[in-house]
C-alpha cells in the first residue's frame, strides 16, 4: 500500500477537471480520493461497475479480491471483463482494464478466495470495504472484518430484478448481522447462478456502491448508514427503510460473543456457496447415468428446473416438476423406481432430493453438476447456460 501521496500533477488536474469544478470536491477532495484506499471483494456483477468508477474517479489504491476466471456466462453483466479476456484471471482482467482507464492509480490484485485465514491480512490498511460477493459466507466474513477493523462496509446484493444497498458501519450504526443475524437455511434462497439476474441490475447497484464509497471518502452528503435502499427494476422504485443497531448483535452489540473471525462456511451450511461443489454419497455422475439409461428398467429422470428452462436444454424422457412444487406433487413420482434428480447445476435438485427423502422416498440419486455437467460429459449438442 503506497504511503506517500504526492500532490496531483498537471495530467491529473486535467483528467479530474470535472471533479475539481464541483465545490464539494475541488483539489482537496480529489487529493483525498488519491490518498484513499478501497478494498473490493469480488470482481463480478457488482464489482465490475464499482471498480471501473472507483478507478475513473481516482481512488488512489484499489484492492481486488477474486479467485475466479472470466467465463462467457459472466459477460451478460460483468462489464469490466471482455471477450478478449475470457479464461483470464478475473483480477488480472479487471486490473488491466482499470489501469487502461486510469494509469495514475495503484491496484493490489489478490487472486485468492476471501477467507477467515487471509481476510485480516488483506483488508488491514484499507479505508473502505465494498462487498460485491455472491454468497452468504463471504458476506458475513466481509461484515465481520469491517467491524473488527472499524471501517465501513458498503453492501450491495441482487436477485433477478431486486437490489439492496446499505452502508454498514458498526462504529456509528448497524452492521449486516444486526439486520440479518443468520443466513437462510442452506438451499432456501437461490443464488443468481440458479435464479438468474437482469444484467443491468448489478450495474445499477454496483454503481451506487461506488457512489457511497466516494461519499464516505470525501465526507460529503449523507451516507446510507442506518438505512437500506431497496431497488425494484420492474416498478422502477427506490424505497428506503430504516435500520437500527441490534442490541443482541453477536459481533457489534454490547454482549458480542463473536470476537474473532469464525468458520463462515460452517456458519452458512455451505452447499449454497456457488463455487465449491461438494461430493455427496448419493451423487451420480453423468457417465454413470448414461450407463443406467441403457438398462432394461431405466431410472425415472426428474427435472426440477423451472418450465422456462426446458426450452434451453433437456434430457429425453425426464418428467418436470419445479423444485418448489415437488412436495405438493408427490403422487406424480413413482416411488417404486430408482429416481435421478437433476437441475441446472445440482443445487436445486439436492434440495428436492432432501424433500423427497423427508417424504419417505428412498431410491434417490442426484445428478452431480446438473444438466450442464451432462452437456459437457455426455451430450455435447446441448448448450451450457
Amino acid at each position, binding site marked *: 500500500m503506497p504511503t506517500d501521496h504526492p500532490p496531483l500533477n498537471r495530467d491529473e488536474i486535467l483528467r479530474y477537471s470535472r471533479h475539481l469544478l464541483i465545490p464539494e470536491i475541488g483539489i482537496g477532495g480529489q487529493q483525498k480520493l488519491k490518498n484513499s484506499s478501497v478494498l473490493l471483494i469480488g470482481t463480478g456483477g*457488482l464489482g465490475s461497475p464499482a471498480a471501473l468508477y472507483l478507478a475513473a474517479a481516482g481512488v488512489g489504491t484499489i484492492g481486488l479480491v477474486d479467485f475466479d476466471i472470466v467465463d462467457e456466462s459472466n459477460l451478460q453483466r460483468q462489464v469490466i471483463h471482455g471477450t478478449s479476456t475470457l479464461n483470464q484471471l478475473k483480477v488480472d482482467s479487471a486490473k488491466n482494464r482499470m489501469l487502461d482507464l486510469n494509469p495514475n492509480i495503484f491496484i493490489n490484485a489478490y487472486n485468492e478466495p476471501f477467507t477467515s485465514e487471509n481476510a485480516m491480512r488483506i483488508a488491514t490498511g484499507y479505508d473502505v470495504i465494498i462487498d*460485491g460477493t*455472491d454468497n452468504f459466507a463471504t458476506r458475513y466474513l466481509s461484515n465481520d472484518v469491517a467491524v473488527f477493523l472499524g471501517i465501513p462496509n458498503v453492501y450491495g446484493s441482487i436477485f433477478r430484478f*431486486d437490489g439492496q444497498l446499505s452502508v454498514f458501519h458498526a462504529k456509528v450504526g448497524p452492521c449486516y448481522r444486526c439486520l440479518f443475524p443468520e443466513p437462510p437455511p442452506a438451499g*432456501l434462497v437461490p443464488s443468481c447462478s440458479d435464479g438468474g439476474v437482469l444484467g443491468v441490475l448489478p450495474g445499477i447497484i454496483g454503481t451506487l456502491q461506488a457512489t457511497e464509497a466516494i461519499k464516505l471518502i470525501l465526507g460529503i452528503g449523507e451516507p446510507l448508514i442506518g438505512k437500506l435502499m431497496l431497488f425494484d427494476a420492474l*416498478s422502477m422504485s427506490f424505497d428506503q427503510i430504516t435500520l437500527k443497531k441490534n442490541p443482541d448483535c453477536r459481533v457489534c452489540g454490547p454482549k458480542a460473543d463473536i470476537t474473532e473471525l469464525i468458520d463462515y462456511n460452517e456458519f452458512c451450511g455451505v452447499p449454497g456457496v456457488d463455487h465449491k461443489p461438494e461430493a455427496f454419497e448419493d451423487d451420480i455422475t453423468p457417465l454413470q447415468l448414461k450407463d443406467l439409461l441403457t438398462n432394461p428398467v431405466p431410472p425415472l429422470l426428474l427435472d426440477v428446473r423451472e418450465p422456462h428452462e426446458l426450452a434451453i436444454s433437456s434430457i429425453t424422457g425426464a418428467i418436470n416438476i419445479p423444485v418448489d412444487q415437488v412436495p405438493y406433487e408427490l403422487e406424480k413420482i413413482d416411488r417404486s423406481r430408482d429416481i435421478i434428480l437433476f437441475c441446472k447445476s445440482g443445487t436445486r435438485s439436492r434440495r428436492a432430493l432432501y424433500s423427497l427423502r423427508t417424504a419417505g422416498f428412498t431410491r434417490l440419486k442426484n445428478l452431480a453438476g446438473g444438466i450442464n455437467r451432462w452437456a459437457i460429459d455426455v451430450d455435447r449438442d446441448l448448450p451450457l447456460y
Partner: protein
Amino acid sequence: MATLKIPTLYSHYTDKNKEMQLDGTTIRQVFENLFLLYPTIQKHIIDPNGKQRRHINIFINKINIVDLQKDETPVNQQDVITILPNISGG
C-alpha cells in the same frame, strides 16, 4: 386495507404479484391473509416452529417490526408493509 410489497424472490409463490392489498389490523392477521391466498409462500416466511424466519425482516412504513410490537404491531389502512429477505447475489 394495507399494502404488502413482495420481493421478486417470493413473487414466484404469489403468481408474480409484487404488491397487494390485504385486510388485517395486525401484522399477524395480514400475513395470515397472505398465507390463505398463497399457501406456498408461508414456509419461506415462517419456520417449522411457527416463528418468523431469521433471514427475513418485515418493515411497516420503513420501521422494522422487531422495533415495534413484532407480529402484534397494529396495521392501519394506509400502511405499507415490506418483506426484506437476505439475498446474496452479486
